C-alpha cells in the first residue's frame, strides 16, 4: 500500500498518538509546539485527502486488512473530506494562535494535559468523520465529548463547571440515544457497517423497530448538535470555556454531529424507508425555522459578547438543518457549504474575541467601550467576520445564504415563506452584529480604563486576520468547498457512487 492509502487512518492516528506524547513534554512551550505540529499535520492530511477526493477517488481503508463488513472500515468521500477540512483546519488554526491565550488561562503545569485533551478531541472529531461504521462513530463521539468536557472546564472560570455538567448530562443522553438506535438497527439487520446497513435495511419486514431507531438516532444527534430546542447546554458552555477552546469547538464540534445526522439519515433511512423523507422534513424543518428565529431574537438582546455569538451559533445550526431538511441536492449543498462558511465566520469572530480578552477582562458589551481605539486591527477583523455572518455579498456567508435561498425556492410549497425566514433572520444578524460594532466603536471608554494603543499579541492577531481574509476569499472564489459540497449532495441524495 502506498502512503496515500494510509491517510484516512493517519488522520485519526496522528493526533491520537500524539496526545500521550504531549503529556511527557513538560517544559513550557514544548507541549504547545508538539500539539500544534500534530494539529498542522492532521490539517495537511485533510488537505491531501480533499485533493484526492476532488480527483474523483473515494478513499476506503480497511483496518488491519480486514475487509468490510467484518473488519473496521474508514471511508473518506466528498462530504467527509469537507468536514475533515473544517475540523482539522479549526483545530490547527486555534492551536497555532493558542499559545499566548492559553498561557494566560491555564497554569503551566496543567498545560501538557490540556493540549493532550485538545488532541484527543481533535482525534475524536476526525474519527467520527472518517468512520464508516455506526458503532465506531459512537466510540469516537465519546472520545471527543469527554475531551471537550475537560477542555471547557479547564479554564479559570468557575462558572464553566455547572455549564459543563449540564453539557455532560445532555451529551451523555444524546450519545445513549444514538447507541440505542444503533442497537435496534443491529438487531434488525445484523450489521454495523453503514454501507452494509444501507443494503440490508430494505429487506427488513418489521419496520417499527427501525422507525424507533430513527427516532432515537435523530434525537440523540440533535442533542449533540444543539438543534433548537435541545441547545440549552451550548450558550453557557461556549461562554465560560477558555477562549481558544471556544474557537475550536464553536467552529466544528456541533457540525460533526450534524454531519452524522445528515449522513445517517440520508444514507440509511431515506434511501430505503418509504415516506421517511417526508417524516424527516416534518421533524427538521419546523425545528430549524424555530431555531433560526428564536435564537436570533435572543441574540439581539444578549448583553455578553461571547454568549451573544454562542446564541447566534444555535441559529446558524438552524440554517444547516434547514438545508438538510429539504432532502434535495440543492439543500444538502447549501447545508454543507454553510457548515464550512459558518465555521470560518464564527471561528474568526471567536478568535477576535480571544484578542479582545487580552485587554478586556469583562466581555459584556457595556464594558467594551473604546475597544476600537485600543485594538483597531482586532476590531476590524471582527467586523469582517461579522459581515460574513450576516451574509453580505463578497463574503463567504453570502454564498451559503444564496444557496440556501435557491434551495428553499426549489423546495416548492413553502419556498417563499422560508426565504422570508432566512432574510428576516439575516436582518436580525445585522442587528446583533451592529450592537457589537457600536459597542466597540462608539461607546465611551469606562472612566478608569486606560486608552493606550494595545493590540493583541502578533501570533494571535495574524491567525485572526488570516481567517478574516479567508472569509472574503471564499466569498469571491468558493470553488473548492463548493466542489466538495456538490460532491456530498450528489453522494447523499443524487445516488451517485
Amino acid at each position, binding site marked *: 500500500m502506498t502512503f496515500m492509502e494510509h491517510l484516512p487512518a493517519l488522520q485519526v492516528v496522528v493526533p491520537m498518538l500524539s496526545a500521550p506524547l504531549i503529556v511527557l513534554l513538560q517544559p513550557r512551550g514544548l507541549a504547545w509546539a508538539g500539539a500544534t505540529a500534530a494539529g498542522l499535520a492532521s490539517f495537511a492530511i485533510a488537505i491531501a485527502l480533499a485533493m484526492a477526493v476532488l480527483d474523483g477517488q473515494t478513499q476506503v481503508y480497511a483496518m488491519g486488512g480486514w475487509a468490510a463488513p467484518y473488519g473496521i472500515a474508514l471511508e473518506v468521500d466528498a462530504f467527509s473530506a469537507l468536514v475533515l477540512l473544517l475540523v482539522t483546519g479549526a483545530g490547527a488554526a486555534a492551536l497555532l494562535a493558542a499559545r499566548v491565550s492559553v498561557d494566560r488561562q491555564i497554569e503551566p503545569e496543567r498545560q501538557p494535559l490540556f493540549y493532550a485533551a485538545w488532541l484527543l478531541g481533535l482525534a475524536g472529531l476526525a474519527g467520527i468523520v472518517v468512520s464508516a461504521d455506526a458503532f465506531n462513530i459512537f466510540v469516537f463521539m465519546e472520545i471527543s465529548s469527554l475531551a471537550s468536557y475537560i477542555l471547557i472546564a479547564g479554564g479559570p472560570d468557575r462558572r464553566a463547571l455547572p455549564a459543563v455538567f449540564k453539557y455532560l448530562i445532555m451529551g451523555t443522553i444524546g450519545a445513549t440515544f444514538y447507541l440505542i438506535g444503533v442497537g435496534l438497527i443491529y438487531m434488525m439487520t445484523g450489521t454495523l457497517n453503514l454501507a452494509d446497513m444501507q443494503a440490508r435495511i430494505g429487506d427488513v419486514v418489521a419496520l417499527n423497530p427501525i422507525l424507533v431507531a430513527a427516532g432515537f438516532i435523530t434525537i440523540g444527534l440533535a442533542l449533540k448538535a444543539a438543534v433548537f430546542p435541545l441547545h440549552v447546554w451550548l450558550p453557557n458552555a461556549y461562554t465560560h470555556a477558555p477562549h481558544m477552546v471556544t474557537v475550536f469547538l464553536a467552529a466544528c464540534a456541533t457540525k460533526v454531529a450534524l454531519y452524522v445526522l445528515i449522513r445517517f439519515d440520508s444514507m440509511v433511512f431515506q434511501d430505503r424507508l418509504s415516506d421517511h423523507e417526508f417524516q424527516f422534513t416534518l421533524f427538521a424543518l419546523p425545528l430549524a425555522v424555530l431555531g433560526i428565529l428564536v435564537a436570533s431574537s435572543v441574540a439581539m438582546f444578549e448583553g455578553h459578547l461571547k454568549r451573544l455569538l454562542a446564541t447566534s451559533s444555535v441559529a446558524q445550526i438552524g440554517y444547516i438543518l434547514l438545508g438538510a431538511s429539504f432532502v434535495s441536492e440543492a439543500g444538502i449543498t447549501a447545508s454543507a457549504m454553510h457548515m464550512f462558511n459558518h465555521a470560518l465566520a464564527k471561528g474568526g469572530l471567536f478568535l477576535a474575541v480571544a484578542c479582545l480578552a487580552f485587554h478586556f477582562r469583562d466581555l459584556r458589551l457595556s464594558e467594551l467601550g473604546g475597544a476600537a481605539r485600543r485594538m483597531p486591527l482586532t476590531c476590524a477583523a471582527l467586523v469582517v467576520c461579522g*459581515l460574513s455572518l450576516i*451574509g*453580505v*455579498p*463578497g463574503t463567504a456567508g453570502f*454564498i451559503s445564504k*444564496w*444557496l440556501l*435561498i*435557491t434551495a428553499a*425556492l426549489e423546495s416548492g410549497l413553502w419556498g417563499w415563506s422560508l*426565504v422570508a425566514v432566512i*432574510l*428576516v433572520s*439575516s*436582518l436580525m444578524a*445585522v442587528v446583533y452584529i*451592529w450592537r457589537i460594532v*457600536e459597542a466597540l*466603536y*462608539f461607546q465611551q471608554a469606562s472612566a478608569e480604563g486606560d486608552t493606550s494603543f494595545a493590540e493583541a499579541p502578533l501570533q494571535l492577531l495574524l491567525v485572526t486576520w488570516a481567517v478574516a481574509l479567508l472569509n472574503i476569499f471564499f*466569498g*469571491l*472564489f*468558493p470553488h473548492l468547498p*463548493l466542489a466538495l459540497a456538490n460532491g456530498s449532495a450528489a453522494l447523499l441524495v443524487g445516488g451517485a457512487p
Partner: protein
Amino acid sequence: MIPETAILTAICLPLAGALAIAVAGRISPNLREATTLLTAAALIWVVWGLLPTLMAGGRPAVEVSEVMPGLTIAFRVEPLGMLFAALASGLWLINSVYSIGYMRGNKEKNQTRFYVCFALALAATMGVAFAGNLFTLFLFYEVLTLSTYPLVSHKGDEATVRSARVYLGVLLCTSIGLFLPAIIWTYMAAGTGDFVHGGILAGKLEGPAIGLLLGLFVFGIGKAAVMPVHRWLPAAMVAPTPVSALLHAVAVVKAGVFAITKIIVYVFGIDFLFATPSSGWLLYMAAFTIITASLVALRQTNIKRLLAYSTIAQLSYVVMAAATLKPLAEVGAAIHMVAHAFGKITLFFAAGAIYVASKKTEIHQLRGIGRRMPWTMTAFTIGALSMIGVPPTAGFVSKWYILAGAFEAENLVAVFTIIASTVLNAAYFLPILYMAWFEREEAGAKAHGEAPFAAVLALCITALLTLAFFLFNGPVIELESQVVRALPL
C-alpha cells in the same frame, strides 16, 4: 490603456489610494491630501479615457470570477454606467479640494479615516457603475453602504450614532429584505442576471408578478429614496458636508436611481414593461414622492435637511422619467442625474462653506449673508435656480427632456407633477435667495468673511459647471441616446 484593463484599474485605483492615504496619514496631513488629490486625478484619467471607446459604440467587458455556476463577478461598460462613473470621478476631485478646505477649516477629528473611507466609497461607486450583472451590482451596492457608514457616523456622538443607525438600518433592511429576493427571483426566472439590451425578463414572467418584482427592486434599492424608504437620507445629513455633497447628492443616491434605471432598461426592457399594465404604479409612486418631498422641504428650517428633501424629490424625477418608458424620457433620466449632481453639489458646498465661515445651519440665520459671502451665495443662487429648472442652468435641460418624454407618453400625471414641483421648488428656494440678498442682517451679528479658499474654489467650479452644462450638453445627450437606440450589443 486597453479598455478592459481600464475597468479594473478604475475599481482598484481608489482601493490602492485608500491604502496609500492610510499610510500617508501617519506621515503628514499634507502628504495625505496630496495622495487623495492624486488618486482622484488618476481616476479621472482612467475613467474618462474610456469615453472615446463608448462614443464609438464599444462595450468593453471583463469577467473576474465565476463565483457559482451562472453567478459571476463581471463588468461591462455601457453609456449609463459610463456617465455615472465619469460624473462621480470628476466630482470627486473637486470635492476633495473642497474637503481639504472644509475639514481643516472645521478642525475635524479622524481626518485620515475620513479620506480612506471616501476612497473606498468611490471604489464601490465605480463597481456599481461598471457592474455587468445584478450580482456584481448588488455586491458593490452593499460595499457602498458599508463604506459610507463610518463617514455618516464620523462625529461619533450619540445623536450621530443614532442617525447612522437609521442610515444603515434602512439601507441594509431594504437591500437584504427586498433587493436580494428580487435578484434571486430574476436569476430563477431568467436563468441569468446579465444586463442585456432589451431586457432578459420578456416572456419569462407575466401578469402581476412583473409589477411585484419591479416593486421589490424599486423599494429594495433604498438608495433611490422613493417614499417610503427615504428616511435614511435626512438622517445621513449628520455627516460632514463634503460627505453629504458628494455621496448623498451624487454617488450614493445616484447609485440608487442609476441602478433602477439600469434595471428598467436592461433587465425588464422598456418595451416589455410598457406592455405590462401592472408596472404602471411606479410612475405614480415617484410622482407622489416628488410632490410630498417638496411639500416637506417647504417646512424645513435646517439648510441641509431642506437640501436632503429636495434631493429626495429630484431623485424621483429620475425614477419617474425612467418609469415613463419612452426613449426621450430615458435620456432625460440620465441627463437629470448629471444636472442634479452639479446643482445639488453646489448647494451642499455652499451650505458647508456657510457653516465653516459662520457656524450657521438654519435658514432664518441666512438674512443678509449675501454681502458677507458673495461668492458662496452666488453659487448657491445658481444651484437653486438649477433645481427650479430656470435657464440657463443645467436643470432646465433635463426637465425639458423629461417633459418631452411625458408628452410623448401622453401622461398628464407626469406633466402635472413636473409643473407642480417646479412651483414648489421655487416656493422653498426663492425665499432663501431673497433673504440672503435683500434682507438686512440682524444687528450685532458676528462678522465673518468667506470660507477657506479651497472650499470657495470648489463651489465656484461646480456652479460654473451647472451653467456650462446648459450650453455644452451635446456629447452627453449623444452618448445617452445610445441607450435607447438599438445598438448591436
